[in-house]
Each structure stands twice: as C-alpha cells, then as structure tokens.
C-alpha cells in the first residue's frame, strides 16, 4: 500500500510573520487519484499547495515525492519534478497566440541564438494540441478565447511538461456549468492516464462528483482524510467548521430598532450580482455569508459607490442614489474594505493622517486644517480603540493587521456612520485582536449603528450576527435568523448545497 503514495506530507510547518499558517500536517496522496483538499478560507489549503508547487518553502517537516524527500525552492524545481499548478486566477497575456502560450518558456531557437525558430515552434505546439486531442487555431489570440478554453490549454500545457501531479486551485470559480462538465471529463481522462490531481474547492456538489479522497483542513491543521463515499455532506461540513463557539464572541442581546437601510432588486453592472433584496435595522448586526467569489464584496463595493450597480437603495425611508464614495459618506453609509492594504490604509502616512482622511472637511476651515481639533478628535479614537503604537505619528504600515484594522474603524467611527459595512473584518488578524474587533462591533451597535458584516467564517457570523443572509454565485440564497442558526444550515445555503438537492 505504502509504495502507492505519490506524495507524502510529514509534520509540515509553515510560519508567516505573526501567524502559524500550517502546523503538523501529515497525510499522503495516492497515485492516480483525484484528491480533494477542503476547508474554509484561511484553513491553509492554498499555503499547502504552494509548498508542493515550490512557491513557498516549509519551515519544518518533510515532503516526500515517490518516497524520496524533496524540497522545492522555486516553481521551476517543482515543474522539473513533474508537478504543475493551475492557479485560481489564470495568468496569461491576451495578446499571445495559442502556439506562443503553449510553448512559452521553451521556445525553440534558431541557429542564431535569441531568435525563435517559428517553424519548429508551430510543429511542436501542434503536437501538444494533438496529444490532448484539442482543436484550436494555433494563431488565435488568447484574448479571444473563453476562460474555460484557456484553462484547458493550461492543463494541456502542464501535461506537455510531463506533469504527473496537477494541482487545481478552485478551477471552476470562473466557469459555467457546461464548462465545468467539460473540465470534469478532462479530469477523468487525466486520471485514466495515471495522472494525480489535487483538487481544491469548497463547492459541495463538485467534490462529491469528482473526488476519490477528501482531506479536510481547518485553521492550518490537518483534520481527516477519507474516501469520498464515507462522507456525507453533513459530516463533511461538521468537520470543516469544527470548533465550538463559546466565549469567543462578546455578543449581547440588545433591542433592535426600526429598519434603517434597505436594498431592493439591486444588481451590479459588471460583477455578476443579481436581484439582491435585504434590509438592516437599527443596532442590528447583519451577516452576509458567502464563499470567496460569491459576489459579496462585489455587492457591497457597488453599494458603497466603488463600483456601479442599479436598484432601489433606501436610507431612513428615503431613496438615495450613490454614484461615488462621497455620495455614500454623505448619507452615512461607510465601509471597511476587505483588502485593507490595498483600499483601507495609506501605509506610508501616519495614523493621525489616516484617521482624519475622510473627515478633513469637518476639521478644516476654508481649506485650512484646524490641527488642534484634529489632534483632539483623533487621539480620542486612538485611545478608545486602544491602538497599539508608540504615538499617532508612526506610519500605519508598521502596525500589525489588527491595529491597522482599528485605524480603519477609527476613521469611519469619526465620521459617525449610520450603516457600517465590514467586509471580512477579521481577515489576517490574530485571535486576541479579533476579540477586540468583535467587542468594538458590539459597542458600535449599541451606539445605534447598523452593521453589515461579511464573512466566510461561519463561527464568527453565528457568534456575532442577529440575522444572516447567504449568498451563492451572485444571488442571495437564504435568510436565517439567530434562533435558527446552525453551521450546517448556513454552509448548505452558501455552497449552493440546497439548490443542488432541489435540482
């Protein structure tokens, strides 16, 4: 049995500054199988895959390939050992033709070095296509092909590099149903050729269709590996979400007021969110549960004016039109964005400047800043939120993730929001800082703010929210009140599980 393992993990450890990303991972993968790795966002799936594909080096433990200890320092080394990775977001140059794409990185040279031998390149590219029995025009530009076509070419390219293990990181996230069927057919073909597939996903229906084995990970640790037949949807979800929710969440029952903010038949223009209806009430903490790519960030970005959408948006009983962020701020709608570093903070500037940024009009007269007023207002927030920093003049980029998030919250609290959207507010934050963020959320709710929290971590949604909407593939799939909360129920809705059963 043992020699049938193509890949083996032994006590893999990976540490990022401040976070243990992977801890004591030990399991093995059988040759010629489709092996699914499952877990919530942040469970460590992608990190583990990056260790196999050479993008990360482990800080401890061993990786065994065909029973031999290996360690890849670069993706190039992994490729030389017949391991290929198909990334979630395909990277390609739209101007490249099919033949250029297939031969990228190994273009045959003419006798004059540095010049490409196009004739032999074309012949070799054709050979690769024939191998995968694909029929594409070699001169067609990638930009003219669909995502699924490019994915297929990418897989074919990987095989032509003599890959024996192919890692697919959520390969169906951008595919339509018929394209998914086509991908699965190809995966079965690959399996028949003896190629091992590592398949990362959290879509229930797919996993049960394609997987031979399932490994569950949670919080950077290994939970279990079983044959697919031995799992049911319920048992799998239970293993994925796992932990008990006890004193981690400082939730208090407070009286919830009238409806403050309401959205009717809202769709985004470009980002695939359709016909959203919801409302949030005063002092309520509302959750939106959905996996990454479900359209949750796209929805709130459009509501906040960062993106375009249409539908009816009502604040305090009156319809409002939000064309840009300033419009949203004017009506008291604010948002702490998901990607803190990209959209939340100006890293090279001080805490003080970051917090006063959306409040400049309030602290200035005829364009001149009232520095004393600024100092007073910001230091109040600085102390109230217990931001850990030597003083308010240090650059925000030097702070930890939790404290950066507090800076973001401070800047919005200073603007006195009516509705505050928190997009994955505890992402990349350690446990103790998480607790403080939850505590702040509770305080904000008490002070009369309506909070909309987006998350894919079920425990925190269940722990903090009064009501949860679930989202799957751009649509709301359910509304669950606090009394009816169970992890299994929410998970089922947000992975489209129920939809699938009803089909």
């Amino acid at each position: 049995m043992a020699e049938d393992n193509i890949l083996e993990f032994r006590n893999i450890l990976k540490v990022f500054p401040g976070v243990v990303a992977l801890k004591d991972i030990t399991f093995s993968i059988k040759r010629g199988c489709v092996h699914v790795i499952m877990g919530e966002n942040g469970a460590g799936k992608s990190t583990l895959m990056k260790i196999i594909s050479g993008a990360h080096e482990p800080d401890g433990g061993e990786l065994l390939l065909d029973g031999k200890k290996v360690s890849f320092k670069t993706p190039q080394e992994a490729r030389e050992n017949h391991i290929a990775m198909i990334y979630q977001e395909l990277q390609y140059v739209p101007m490249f033709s099919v033949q250029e794409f297939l031969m990228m990185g190994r273009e045959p040279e003419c006798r004059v070095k540095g010049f490409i031998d196009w004739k032999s390149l074309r012949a070799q590219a054709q050979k690769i296509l024939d191998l995968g029995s694909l029929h594409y025009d070699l001169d067609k530009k990638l930009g003219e092909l669909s995502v699924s076509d490019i994915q297929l070419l990418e897989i074919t390219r990987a095989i032509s590099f003599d890959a024996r293990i192919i890692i697919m990181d959520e390969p169906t996230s951008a595919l339509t149903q018929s394209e998914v069927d086509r991908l699965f057919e190809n995966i079965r073909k690959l399996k028949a050729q003896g190629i091992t597939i590592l398949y990362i996903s959290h879509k229930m229906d797919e996993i049960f269709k394609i997987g031979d084995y399932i490994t569950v990970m949670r919080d950077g640790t290994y939970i279990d590996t079983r044959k697919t037949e031995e799992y049911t949807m319920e048992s799998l979800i239970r293993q994925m979400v796992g932990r008990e929710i006890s004193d981690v969440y400082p939730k208090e029952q407070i009286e919830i007021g009238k409806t403050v903010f309401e959205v009717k038949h809202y769709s985004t223009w470009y980002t695939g969110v359709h016909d959203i209806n919801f409302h949030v009430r005063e002092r309520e903490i509302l959750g939106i549960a959905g996996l990454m790519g479900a359209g949750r960030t796209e929805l709130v970005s459009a509501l906040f004016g960062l993106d375009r959408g249409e539908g009816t948006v009502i604040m305090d009983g009156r319809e409002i039109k939000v064309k840009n962020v300033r419009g949203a701020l004017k009506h008291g709608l604010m948002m702490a964005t998901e990607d803190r570093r990209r959209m939340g903070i100006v890293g090279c500037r001080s805490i003080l400047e970051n917090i006063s940024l959306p409040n400049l009009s309030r602290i200035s007269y005829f364009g001149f800043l009232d520095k004393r007023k600024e100092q007073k207002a910001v230091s109040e927030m600085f102390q109230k939120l217990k931001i850990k920093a030597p003083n308010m003049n240090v650059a925000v980029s030097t702070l930890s993730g939790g404290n950066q998030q507090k800076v973001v919250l401070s800047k919005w609290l200073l603007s006195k929001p009516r509705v505050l959207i928190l997009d994955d507010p505890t992402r990349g934050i350690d446990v103790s800082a998480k607790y403080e963020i939850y505590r702040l959320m509770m305080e904000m709710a008490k002070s009369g703010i309506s909070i909309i929290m987006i998350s894919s971590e079920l425990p925190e949604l269940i722990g903090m929210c009064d009501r949860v909407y679930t989202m799957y593939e751009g649509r709301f799939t359910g509304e669950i009140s606090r009394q009816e909360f169970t992890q299994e129920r929410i998970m089922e809705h947000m992975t489209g599980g129920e939809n699938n059963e009803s089909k």
Partner: protein
Amino acid sequence: MSQNKSSGKTVNWSAILNKYAIHIVLIVLFVVGTLASDNFLTLKNITNILRQVSVQCVLAFGMTLLIIGGMIDLSMGAVAALSGFVACGVYVSTNQLIPALLAAIIVSMMCGLVNGVTVTYFKLPPFIATMGMDLVARGIVYIYSGGNPIYQIGSFNKLSTGYLFGIVPFPTVVMLLIFLITLVLLRKTKIGRQIYAVGGNEEAARASGISVEKTKIKTYLISSCFVAIAGCLLMARLNSAMPDAANGYHADAVAAAVIGGTAFSGGIGTASGTLIGGLIVGILGNILDLVGVQSYIQQVIRGSIIIAAVAWDISSKNRKVRVAHR
C-alpha cells in the same frame, strides 16, 4: 515595547545618518566649496548662488507636490518658457507688470489644466501626457515668437536684478515665498493631505471619499502657477525673452525634489527637503563653475546625481519600512 527601550539606550547612528543625510551633504558641499575656491565664500558669490537656484527651486516645489501626489511634469521647462515669453510680450506692449504676470499665470494654468485632465479623465500616464505637453508648449513659443527672442524687455528685468533691503536678491524672496506656500500647503491644508493620500495609495484615498481626479487636477494647477512665476524670473534674469529658454529644467526640478527626500513612489516628501535639495544642486553647479569644469561634464555629473539619489531612495526603502515624516 522592547524595541523602544533598545533604541532609547543606544544611539541609532544609521537612523540619524539617514534622516539628516541631505543636511550633511549640504554642509560638506559648503566646506568643499570654501576649500576649493577663494571666491566661493564671498557675499557676491552667495547672492549669485541664491539668485541662480531660485528659478529651479520654484519649479522644484511644484514638482515636489506632483511627485508626492504620484504624478510628474516633464513640460515644466517648455511651459515656463512659454509663459515667461508671453509675460514679456505683454509687458513690452503695455509696460505694466501685473497684466504681464497674470497673462503668464493664465497661459501656464491652461497647460496645467490640460495636463491634469489628460492624466485623470483620459487616464494617460503623467509621463506621457506631460512629455507631449512639453513639445506642444515649446512649439507654441516658437510659433508665437517666430523663433526670435525679444531683446528689449525694458524694466521687466528688475524682477531679477532687484534687491530686498539692498541685500537679498528679489528672485530669492519670491522663491522663499513659494517655499512657504508649499510648506503650508503640505502641512496645514486639506488639499495637502489629499495630495499625500492620493500619492500614497490612490485606491485607499478614493475609498475614503476623496476625489482622486480633482486632487490631481488641482495639483497640476497649483504647480503651473509656480511654473509661470519661474518663467518670468528666468526671462528677467536673461534680460530678454528667449523662446528656447529653460530647456530641460524639469530634470533639475526632479533632482532637487528627489535629493530632498521626495519618494518617487508617491506619498512622501516635504517642502524643506526640496529646498535643501535645490541648494545642493545649485551649490554643486556653482563649485563646478568656480573650479572651471566644462558645462558638458557638469551635465554628466548632474544626471549621475539624479540616478544616485533615486537609487539611494529605493534601496533605503527596501531596508526598512519608512516612517512618515510630517
């Protein structure tokens, strides 16, 4: 916490060196100049230096605002020449200073507006947009002048030859005034904060409700006022309106800003840093003149200094995360 303690006990020399590097360079240059030439530390030479650096410094303050905001302006030289030439033209026909200066500022602001609009609403990279403007503005001066300088500009040259209190050259007074405006703008105004935020992280600025487009256009407009003033000072100093004046002056402006600690990645920079940067560039040129270095060789040296300053900036950023100076 522990980091605080350790840095409190031992003096962190490299941090001090980093922070005051340009001050030290300036002092060293002064000493070198004094040793190299007897003529360096004379009243006449010092006022001469101050008068010479004024034009470049005024441009450099505009460039500082732009670079902090994540932009650049390569059309500064040509627009300075255009607006300066227009000012002289108006002055010669009206013999009045105020309309002349206003004409210069209006012409320059029109160029600045075009730069700002192409960069924001047409999303051109500032490098390309202003490079095009450089050609356009230079072309217009040649058309307007027919390629001929105006040698008789009357008392317009008083702008350059005058003294305040009989000792401070008038261009230096103007330059210090622009320095103060830049200083206040960056430290004490809303638009200053917005420029820092837009340059530091455009997307975060937008998500904080700042209009990135308006901020950028305003920056170009403010900078173009400075450019007009520099153009007038320059023509006054040349004592004639030259259509081919100020060629390549944007390079000196960039050099002064970058040597003064303005980060090319945006979001970081100060007015006082640029003032010191401008003085360094000016004094270096003066010393090279005094010891008789050929002007072609000087150009090579100036170019090398720009490259070295940016390299220093980038490598020191890689070493550690920078703390914002205010």
